[in-house]
């Protein structure tokens, strides 16, 4: 039988008080998706929405349960395809507006109502390149360990052990335990 793992290490020192406060890191999904049942992730092809910060290859979070409002970025059905545009109203008629001057607006005809597939609630744009070289750049530090000037990288490891007989000078000004004050 597999031995169940204990959540707290009971024998070694004090139990961690922090345990009571920790129920996992926050979830990106939970934060950006309010209606998981009706939310779909789709990907963008094309540059017609760059003005809205939506680039080719971005991921869009689309919630189908939201009622489209003027100004929303929406996924609409045009010619049997899913298209991302900004929804505007002009003279009481819906207009699909690309956020790129190179593309024309789409104004729906009176005959047929515009089919809106869903409302875009956000997009994810990948910043870092996929093929990284991971070569460290000069002049960049990756930790906030105490800076020791004029010494090499070994300095951190070679620092004085913390618990030594004499108390460091800078502690002197603090009140000490057992001191009556």
């Amino acid at each position, binding site marked *: *039988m*597999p031995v169940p793992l204990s959540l707290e290490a009971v024998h070694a020192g004090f139990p961690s008080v922090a345990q009571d406060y920790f129920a996992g890191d926050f979830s990106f999904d939970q934060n950006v998706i309010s*209606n998981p*049942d*009706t939310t*779909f*992730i*789709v*990907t*963008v*092809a*094309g*540059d*017609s*929405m760059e003005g809205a910060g*939506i680039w*080719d290859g971005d*991921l*869009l979070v689309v919630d*189908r*349960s939201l009622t489209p409002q003027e100004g929303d970025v929406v*996924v609409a*059905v045009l*010619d*049997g*395809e*899913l*298209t*991302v545009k900004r929804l505007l109203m002009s003279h009481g008629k819906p207009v699909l507006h*690309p956020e790129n001057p190179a*593309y024309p607006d789409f104004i729906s005809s009176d005959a047929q109502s515009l*089919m809106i*597939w869903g409302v875009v609630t956000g997009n994810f744009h990948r910043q870092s390149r996929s093929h990284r070289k991971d070569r460290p750049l000069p002049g960049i530090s990756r930790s906030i360990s105490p800076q020791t000037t004029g010494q090499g990288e070994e300095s951190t490891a070679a620092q004085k052990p913390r618990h030594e007989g004499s108390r460091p000078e800078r502690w002197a000004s603090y009140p000490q335990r057992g001191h009556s004050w």
Partner: protein
Amino acid sequence: MAQLLVLADANSFYASCEQVFNPSLVDRPVVVLSNNDGCVVARSPKAKALGISNGTPWFQIQEQAMEDGVVARSSNYELYASMSARMMSIMGRFLPGQEVYSIDECFLRSPWGPNKTMEVCARMREAVLTGLGIPVSVGIAPTKTLAKIANHWAKDHPASRGVTLWSQTEERYGDQALASVPIEEVWGVGRRLTRRLQALGLVNALDLRQADRSMIRHRFSITLERTVLELRGIDCIEDQPDANEGKRSGQIICSRMFSQPITGFDQMSQALSVYSQKACRRLRHQGSLCCQVSAFCASSPYNTARDYISLHRTLPLPNPSDDPLIICKAACDALRDPFDPRASYIRAGVVLVGLVDKGDYQTLPGLEADQDRHGLGMVLDEVNHRFGAARVGIGYGGIRGQGKGDEDTGASWTMRRELLSPRSTTRWDEMAVVRAS
């Protein structure tokens, strides 16, 4: 006032799922094909209108269908399951007592009177239609059997706007409403019963409702007597809440037809190892161990040139186990001796029997079950879930083919799914694309 039962059922569910991410299919005849692209298993309304019936072999109608502009799709079960889970979750928030009855239908219980129930169901239907793009029909009645009938009514009568309250329909049409339902369409009346009932002159739902219940009990069964009572508005078919939990089954079967016949034990053990792995996964999910492993294979019964061969052998395991290595080995060993290498086989399968609950099986230390204590099964599942099916596997189970249609393994015999649509909700590399151009 009796409690109202609600049956919500998606219209042409598989075909509707295909249309969600591909709006060009809306208003076109769409058919979904079974495993190996064999038969039609679902049709969009336009395809129904063309007169294509379920179960028709695709090759028989392919030519004509292409001419008629019919779009055929392989069964995309991954997509359907994802859409089904979303749909059930949405509907479960509108009414209590949800009982998921199949991939595309569920029963619910309304705590309210007829008018409020109608209103809530209309909102529920709207939420699924806008939120997922899946049309559902809703039947409301005092019993499950009548709710089924009301649901069919809603599907057949567009004026109902997808929601039918049976008492309203009966008020308007009187006995005609039930009389218009052929007896074979009554829930719980199978094909065999239909013939026997028709012989007694019971040809529609009204006849069955008016039949003498003790005669029905004596000549048929208590189950059919319950159907009679249900048609009279007496709720007597209990919920099966287990359907929600994914009930533990007493045996696990994993079996498929091959896309082309296979010969030789090498290929057979390859198939058996893939099926064993799948069966183990289900075993682990329901928290069971199995005591016996059964394997079978058969040649085509239609091939008259050769003798029909059907092999089936069961091996007991030394100890109850859920270890994929042990189970896979047992499945292969079961068929090794009786195997005829000259025959060509068209199907095979693995059955896990003698299932015991993992928690119930306790013995003295040192005599434990051969459980998967290395967690191998879980690792296999996790790797395949994360990196795609058949990336790793036992033996030949890990040889991966190219492309979606042949993704289970690289073997020549795996399911043919040439017309598979993207699995837009479960695979990052098959996400739907929206145009910005």
